[in-house]
């Protein structure tokens, strides 16, 4: 996952494959079909509880992220600070996977009646927001590209992913698995489909001048 690991390889890549500034931009679009049965985390057996714990909402783990492994030069032209949100609702993180650009600030609102305690021990971003209740929100700015695994310190079954990219050439699939990456300069790219914690499939694609390329994935 070159894009996620650092900017060094990216800089090298853009020097090699920098397209003409006058070239019309193309797009990559298609569908990611998740063939395998997605994992479904459940609360640990509540042996010490006096009653059954509340059942958390099921997460949509079929959502995938499709991205260019090595980004073109335009990756660095748009550096507007962005904002995103990862909700805590019915003891689940919503969405399960959030893809953002480096520099994005992510809000973590708590929509539950109980406390949550969002934290991550990932190398790309280590943080702990402490316990806070319903209606409150805390934020984290993600500056370093990488995969950030997010958990709740109180509810061990709660987890989510924040994928932080150094560029803007990525897309999260919709409920039908469709995605679309626009503004892609002409060139040859390696496209990765990521699902539920792993790079599941890698494909090579050539985007012509102003061309819309169809690229489907089937991940297991």
């Amino acid at each position, binding site marked *: 996952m070159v894009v996620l690991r650092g900017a060094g390889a990216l800089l090298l890549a853009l020097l090699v494959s920098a397209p003409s500034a006058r070239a019309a931009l193309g797009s990559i679009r298609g569908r990611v079909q998740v063939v395998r049965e997605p994992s*479904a985390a459940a609360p640990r*057996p509540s042996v010490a509880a006096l*009653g059954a714990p509340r059942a958390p909402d099921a997460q949509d783990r079929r959502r995938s992220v499709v991205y260019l492994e090595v980004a073109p030069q335009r990756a660095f032209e748009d550096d507007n600070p962005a904002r995103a949100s990862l909700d805590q609702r019915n003891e689940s993180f919503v969405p399960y996977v959030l893809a953002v650009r480096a520099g994005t600030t992510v809000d973590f609102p708590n929509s539950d*009646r109980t*406390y949550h305690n969002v*934290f991550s*021990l990932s190398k790309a971003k280590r943080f702990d927001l402490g*316990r806070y209740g319903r209606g409150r929100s805390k934020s984290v700015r993600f500056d370093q590209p990488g995969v950030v695994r997010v958990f709740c310190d109180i509810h061990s079954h709660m*987890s989510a992913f924040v994928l932080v990219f150094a560029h803007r050439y990525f897309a999260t699939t919709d409920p039908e698995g469709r995605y679309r990456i626009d503004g892609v300069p002409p060139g040859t790219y390696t496209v990765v489909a990521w699902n539920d914690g792993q790079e599941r499939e890698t494909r090579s694609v050539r985007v012509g001048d102003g061309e819309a390329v169809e690229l489907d994935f089937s991940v297991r």
Partner: protein
Amino acid sequence: MSRPRALVLLSLLLAPGSLEAAEPIRLGGLRLVLGGEMSGSAAETDRGFFNDSGYERNPLRLFRLSLTAEVRAGDHVAALTEVRSENLNTPRAYALYLRVRPWADEELDIQAGLIPPVFGSYGRRRYGADNPLIGEPLAYQYLTTLRADAFPASEDELLYWRGRGWLVDYPIGATAPAPGLPLVSSVEWDAGVQVRWAGERFEAAAALTQGTLSRPRVEDDNEGKQFSTRVAVRPLVGLVVGASAATGDYVADQAVDALAPPVEGRQRALGLDVEYSAGYALVRAEAVWSRWDAPTLRDDLEADGYMVEARYKLLPGFYVAARFDHVGFGDIAGSQGRAAWDAPTTRFEGGIGFSLRRNLLLKASWQRNERADGFRRQDFVAGQVLWWY
């Protein structure tokens, strides 16, 4: 002792251990969820038996394997169990019960079997990750000089054993030396039936069980039952205040039969627990008052234990914690005058915890114990590695 069986448990524990969150396994119409915990703690020899909570069981020097399982059949019925091995001894079921929720949208649960304790708070959070330190609260661990199956012939004999509850020898009842009883046992759970109802801010639970707080039992050995109850309120998010009570027959038939005439004995207890958390801080306090009938003595035996503990996260994955803890005993009249029937003991434990991974925790703590009699004082430096899924 069966080390091979413990190793089988270890294998079962490690098999799905790569999972960071339990994933249910479908078995026809059933849904199986597994969880596991492995912990090892080390400290110097406890010469004063301050931390012993059973025969050769010391939480500062303990290797524990625990496998938990929940099998659900629809929305209303589940079976739960915890099988545990300590120091690679024969794995045992510490929990094994059926949970029934008659109405799916009402938080009313009935649990029957080897069930978690209703009384207090610590007994339900004894798992390593729920304990910010390594030691256990004195009220739930410290072995007093009172036994359920043997009694002293006089007040002076009871006073003679002050501060030596880890191995007591009395002439009436069972003749072999054995450990005394804690105020509340967190080592084992009681068998019986329990009902709990929870609302948004209020929770109530009650249980009828075979043993007592001091002496949970799978099989009844005195034909008596214990009734225990707890109510808890949540006046605001992060604050829980609970009050508990219990009463039950604790004297084993073996001791009753040795008495002339046979006399039954009860344990009565009250408890109060508070937990408050906000931001990076967590504070807990708990108090237990217990009174036991003493069939061979003039007075009942009273004891109280209380503790305050706090945890504060300094950095992601890193916290500091401390607990102040005391257990005291009521006076009885011996030939030399009145004195506490066992030696009051005080403990302070302070420590740190560092998470290498979300489910891999390292703990280190320093513990000071002071006792009014017998082996009076010992300090410990302890370490613990804890892994769970």
